[in-house]
């Protein structure tokens, strides 16, 4: 470096600085991209492991509520503000969402049924759609 002309030294330093900037930019961009991939994969994994089925009996003339069976491999959130219930496409406010066959841990585990009660609407003969927090849904014509 001692015998290097000033212009070459400037080129050298500029090259190193540009290379460093490129590496930092690449690292940041790749980090954001991989972070997004991980989040998306996690969401998809959660959706793949989740499944619900509306098990109401279409032959029944009245329904005390909408029975939703967790047929997936993971526990779901059964709080009323995380479940959406549509009757003939109209959003309904869920009054209660009790687990019918709870094993005692108060979590909506696989093979457990949640009874969603609504006010003023008899689901008989109507199209029911239930959507849980992660977007997994089921539709049934009663």
């Amino acid at each position: 470096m001692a015998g290097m002309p000033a212009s070459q030294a400037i080129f050298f330093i500029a090259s190193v600085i540009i290379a460093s900037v490129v590496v930092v930019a690449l690292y940041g961009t790749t980090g954001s991209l991989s972070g997004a991939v991980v989040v998306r994969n996690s969401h998809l994994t959660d959706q793949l492991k989740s499944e619900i089925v509306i098990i109401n009996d279409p032959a029944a003339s009245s329904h005390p509520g909408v029975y939703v069976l967790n047929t997936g491999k993971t526990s779901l959130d059964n709080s009323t503000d995380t479940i959406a219930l549509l009757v003939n496409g109209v959003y309904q406010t869920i009054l209660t969402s009790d687990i019918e066959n709870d094993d005692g841990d108060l979590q909506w585990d696989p093979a457990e049924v949640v009874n969603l009660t609504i006010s003023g609407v008899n689901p008989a003969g109507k199209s029911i759609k239930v959507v849980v927090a992660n977007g997994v849904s089921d539709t049934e014509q009663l």
Partner: protein
Amino acid sequence: MGFGISVATAIIAIGLILTATVHYERVSNSCESLRDARDEKHAMRLSELDTAIGVYSTSQYHYEDQGGIANTSGSDNFYIKNTGTTSIDKADLIVLVNGASDSFNPELSGWAYPGDGFQATLDLDIGDDVKIVTANGRSAHAGVV
């Protein structure tokens, strides 16, 4: 000039290797979880296809006795048969009578292997509609006559 470009290239190369090393593992683990979840979904579908039950009014499981429960005074006995190719946990069976959740009395327990039939008891009346649902959502209907 040439030396500067060589050093810059080396810095970029080292940076790329570092970036790939740091991010590869977590993306790889994430993809592995996704593959496992896809396999589980596949297993769920297969289990659903393998599961089937029937409700019969007699323990002989005649075809003509399927889908009916003979009403008697007091408790009504009927029979459930595992007509699928996978075992069913009897304790996981869900009962709806006339659209409302009910429970067997006495409660059921143990496994029903493929082809196994077992007795269940409910308090029913003529005209009642019974729906039995397995843990994976498969079901059978019966009317009380």
